[in-house]
């Protein structure tokens, strides 16, 4: 547990590290998904190509979109892009930086899927088994077959159990050939991606370092500002709720005392801290009524200012139309006791 907490803290401390962590997890997830996936080539001429290329290309697209969905910053980017200008200008360079860094991270899992698929070879074998060069690989003395029949036989190459064209072309020869092509494609693809990544990373300091530092600072700033604003709003909501509920209980207790009208209020001398926290509600019936009232008639989202201790402060009270006026009168009356 400690180990996980430390790793978690390390990733959380730095926003970029956190995103890199998610990136790595998605790459591992895509490898795991591929090995858990049960690949079943249909071994039929019309369906092989669609199935093979579908497995090769559709999951990367899904992983790419998932990379965007899991990235918290996508909503931040959208917000910054669509907000009205107001009193703060918009910097296109910052938006471009955010977009590029998100796209780069989202690309990693699809690239891993494509590489693993190509290096494994099953997809390409399934998709292109009907296109093997029979002239160079096939047996010289094979029977002449019609085009359709030939396609049907070749389509069964990936399915060793039902393959019946051994005299046409040996199954192992064809599979080895296709797998070799697939692995060559895979390694070339990985080499290309790595070279691109290397160029992008190493050319940047040579050309636009100052602009990059600026964009990076302001994109971090926007992120931090959004988080701090959310935290401040949460703090405010907490205080708001606290005062609202406190006023609700006070309102309830004064209501009930006005209704009962016989119990003298317990003097402050008697009130310890615990008694104060009871907010004047000290028996089961009162509490039940308070709970019922909370459910049936929640107070409005409007905090009235605290009553001044010496009486005449309600002259300007016309501002609160939705608040029931009855408790106010009682409050004024009771405070005038003191």
């Amino acid at each position, binding site marked *: 547990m400690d180990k996980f907490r*430390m790793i978690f803290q390390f990733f959380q401390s730095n926003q970029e590290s956190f995103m890199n962590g998610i990136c790595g997890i998605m790459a591992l997830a895509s490898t795991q998904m591929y090995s858990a996936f049960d690949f079943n080539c249909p071994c039929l001429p019309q369906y092989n190509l669609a199935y093979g290329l579908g497995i090769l290309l559709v999951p990367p697209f899904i992983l790419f979109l998932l990379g965007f969905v899991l990235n918290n910053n996508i909503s931040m980017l959208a917000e910054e892009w669509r907000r009205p200008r107001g009193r*703060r200008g918009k910097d296109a360079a910052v938006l471009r930086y955010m977009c590029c860094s998100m796209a780069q991270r989202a690309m990693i899992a699809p690239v891993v899927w494509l590489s693993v698929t190509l290096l494994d*070879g099953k997809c390409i074998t399934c998709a292109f088994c009907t296109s093997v060069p029979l002239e160079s690989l096939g047996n010289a003395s094979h029977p002449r077959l019609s085009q359709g029949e030939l396609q049907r036989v070749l389509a069964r190459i990936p399915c060793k159990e039902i393959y019946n064209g051994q005299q046409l072309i040996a199954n192992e020869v064809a599979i080895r050939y296709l797998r*070799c092509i697939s692995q060559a494609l895979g390694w070339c693809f990985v080499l290309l991606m790595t070279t691109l990544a290397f160029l992008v990373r190493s050319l940047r300091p040579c050309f636009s370092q100052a602009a990059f530092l600026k964009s990076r600072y302001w994109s971090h700033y926007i992120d931090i500002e959004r988080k701090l604003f959310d935290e401040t709003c949460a703090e405010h909501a907490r*205080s708001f709720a606290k005062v609202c509920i406190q006023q609700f209980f006070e309102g309830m207790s004064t209501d009930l005392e006005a209704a009962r009208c016989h119990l003298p209020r317990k003097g402050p001398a008697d009130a310890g801290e615990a008694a104060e926290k009871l907010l004047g509600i000290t028996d089961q019936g009162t509490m039940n009524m308070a709970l019922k009232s909370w459910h049936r008639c929640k107070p409005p989202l409007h905090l009235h200012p605290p009553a001044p201790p010496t009486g005449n402060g309600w002259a300007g009270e016309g501002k609160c139309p939705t608040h029931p006026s009855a408790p106010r009168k009682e409050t004024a009356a009771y405070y005038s006791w003191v």
Partner: protein
Amino acid sequence: MDRFRMIFQYFQSNSESVMNGICGLLALASVKMYTSLDFSCPCLPQYNMAYGLGIMFVPPIILFLCGLILNRQSLVMLEEWRRPAGCRKKDPAVIRYMCSSIMQRAMVAPVVWIMVTLLDGKCLICAFSGSMDPQKFVGFANVSTEQVQQLLAKVPCKDDEPMRNSTSRKAVSRYLRCCSQALGWSILLILIVAAFLARWLRPCFNQATLLQARHWSNYIDIEQKIFEETCCEHSRLFAHKCILHFFESMQQEIKLHSFSLPRDGEEAEGGEGLLQGITDQDQVNKLLRTWYYEKPPLDVSQAHQR
């Protein structure tokens, strides 16, 4: 747990240690990649050499580039190289030191891959089985030229029909594996001796320059990190101030537009102080709407002038 934490902290504390850690991870990854790779030689005369040599040399290039990309110091070095001189002179010795240390670390994983490949032998068998002299092997001596090429190309594929129990195939395979392993061990020996000599002889030449270069390269790295951390801290403080001023300005706006009592005891309750004068659903909605439609300008000095 304690041990793990100590190891983790040790690696984090020193940037060079982090780089060494990444280097080691890449080397392990290259071994793992090789063992999980399903090596299937095509066993065709035109393709064997390309496949065998491709598997031996393309992944090391990829691993080398990965080693450069994952190394933070390479960015630091490039920035130091390309920066305008400004008020601080550039020291080519420092840049050279950083460059050589980055290259050395990036070379480890490719060398590991090539070693593993050679010691395993499959790549060389696949690539060079077609180049063997058929006269040296009994089974291939009396076969026509085109056929011998086909047969030799099929040597790496043990399970194919014509080659299944052929002793000549086994002989060729053993011979090539032996050459491959000899080559692998020789290269490993040469590299280790070279590394040994370089490390032991280095203090005899230019030790002072080396110490300076190492110190200043560490300094540049640390300075870069601290600058980034300071920028993060600064943007956090900036955001904090900006939001506080926003809430204050909303509070003032609300006071101006509503005609409620001036509140004397406003700061009396600690809870209400946090509310910043915003105590109504409409006021909160207005605040949130203003935050979206009119974000405050990026200028926290205004508050001091108010």
